[in-house]
């Protein structure tokens, strides 16, 4: 059973196994530590951070759709300083990698956060230029190729940390954006962030959330995510951290075959607090059943 080598190297970020948890679905790990052993997870991408504490969007913030979840949280978080003081020491108790997901309302804020975190004990910075639930920054940045070029170049100059750029699926050609990100010095690419979506309450004749457009996640978006991972994998050389609707080992294997060097569980954590652990076991049993000795052997097998 233990003969399978699950380790992966995301171009400088070495993980004991390819299973990570997605930003915004795992808090800072504390809540899940009451259910699972955090030492078993490859990496934890923490709740999206902003320079100052952010209280998030007004409720209601959630709406369930067929096999999906629309959210409009709006990056509620305690701010980067609290993360540094309270949550880095907390997470360092565990043998897992820390990915700091950063968000800014403008380029200067992104740069400031990258500079601050450059001196801190984290393993990677995940540049989130794809959140659909905020007015400034987020999706508006991540969908414009020239803005992406500018921001990734600037952030690369601000930090020598391992840098992941998280992409939005809400673009016409994700390959173009991915190539820019690679060219500008990112170490890895994570995708997909949520798919911009909307639902309407037909009785009240109003959108279900105040901002009207929300982010769709869960199994409903998995085929979109697989396609985007596959497309990006066909053009870039840097590793891909794939996510979008993964609930178990079989889902994760699908991402691996499409080209994901590692994967993240997102909404799946909400449905099953044990999802990440079960996914590690599921991948391992697939590899055994198929006669592989290493996870990396199946990455990108589907051409």
């Amino acid at each position: 059973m233990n003969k399978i080598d699950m380790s992966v190297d995301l171009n400088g970020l070495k993980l004991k196994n390819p299973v990570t948890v997605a930003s915004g679905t795992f808090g800072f790990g504390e809540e899940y530590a009451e259910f699972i052993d955090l030492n078993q997870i490859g990496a934890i991408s923490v709740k999206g951070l902003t320079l100052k504490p952010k209280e998030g969007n007004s409720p209601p913030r959630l709406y369930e759709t067929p096999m999906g979840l629309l959210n409009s949280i709006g990056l509620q978080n305690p701010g980067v300083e609290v993360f540094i003081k309270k949550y880095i020491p907390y997470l360092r108790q565990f043998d897992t990698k820390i990915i700091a997901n950063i968000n800014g309302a403008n380029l200067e804020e992104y740069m400031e956060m990258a500079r601050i975190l450059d001196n801190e004990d984290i393993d990677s910075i995940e540049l989130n230029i794809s959140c659909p639930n905020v007015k400034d920054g987020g999706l508006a940045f991540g969908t414009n190729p020239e803005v992406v070029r500018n921001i990734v170049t600037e952030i690369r100059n601000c930090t020598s940390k391992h840098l992941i750029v998280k992409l939005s699926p809400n673009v016409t050609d994700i390959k173009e954006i991915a190539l820019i990100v690679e060219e500008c010095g990112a170490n890895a690419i994570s995708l997909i962030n949520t798919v911009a979506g909307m639902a309407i309450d037909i009785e009240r004749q109003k959108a279900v959330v105040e901002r009207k457009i929300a982010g769709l996640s869960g199994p409903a978006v998995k085929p979109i995510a697989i396609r985007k991972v596959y497309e990006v994998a066909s053009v870039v050389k840097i590793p891909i951290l794939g996510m979008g609707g993964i609930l178990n080992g079989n889902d994760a294997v699908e991402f691996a075959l499409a080209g994901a060097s590692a994967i993240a569980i997102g909404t799946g954590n909400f449905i099953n607090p044990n999802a990440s652990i079960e996914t590690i076991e599921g991948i391992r049993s697939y590899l055994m059943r198929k006669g592989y000795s290493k996870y990396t052997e199946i990455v990108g097998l589907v051409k």
Partner: protein
Amino acid sequence: MKFYGKVKVKKIEFMTEDAFKMIVERPDEIDIKPGQFFMIKNVELYPLLNRPISVSSYNEKEIEFGIKIVGTGTENFSRLRVDDEIILTGALGNGFDLKKEYKKVLLVGGGIGVEPLKGAAMELTKMGVFTKMFLGFNNECFDIDVFKKVSSEVITFSEVENKADFMGYPTDILKDELAKSDYDAVFTCGPKILMNKVNEVSKANNVETQLLLEERMACGIGACLGCTCETVNGYKKVCQDGPMFYGNEVNLNE
């Protein structure tokens, strides 16, 4: 560690046309407090999310939930049969604060909101606290025998004539009740309009209110930040900071 896993259904019993009782096995070594809830999911994949359901009552072997059918998730639960499995996560949330100094507590419930008060009355009675329940229903009363077992006194209300002790709402005589007797606290659960009124009347009589809020949830454990409610101290998570809030913390006017 908190519990996550499958348990067997022991009983499904309809109390009204659209409300039922679901009794499940209690997993070993989990603590439960009245006012807490579990995230519950059917074993099939659809619908995707767990449903947050308050604990109604419990003993060493079983947990009882009172559930109103409001959509696909709860309707699926109602169709479960004995020995079917469901997935439980919990117990979650803070639950009622059963203070040692309480001597007399009034519990005011409306609709399916009467259910979580059952466990509260049970524990308070065990502590030697005098409890009185005002229970409001929109038509037939349910489970009154059980409520009478766990509470010193039970008064029922119905919107329909001749269905309960009084026609009307628990709030109709609440003011007089609080004025004539020295309650240490009022526990309430039910429609927002009921809890709001209860809260206002208790405030006016300087009686502490503990109320249970409800909100749509994704994770139920404090990670997704989806079940936000506004309080005097800013946004709070219903799942983790609540679902019990003190009356002076929240504003229930919409």
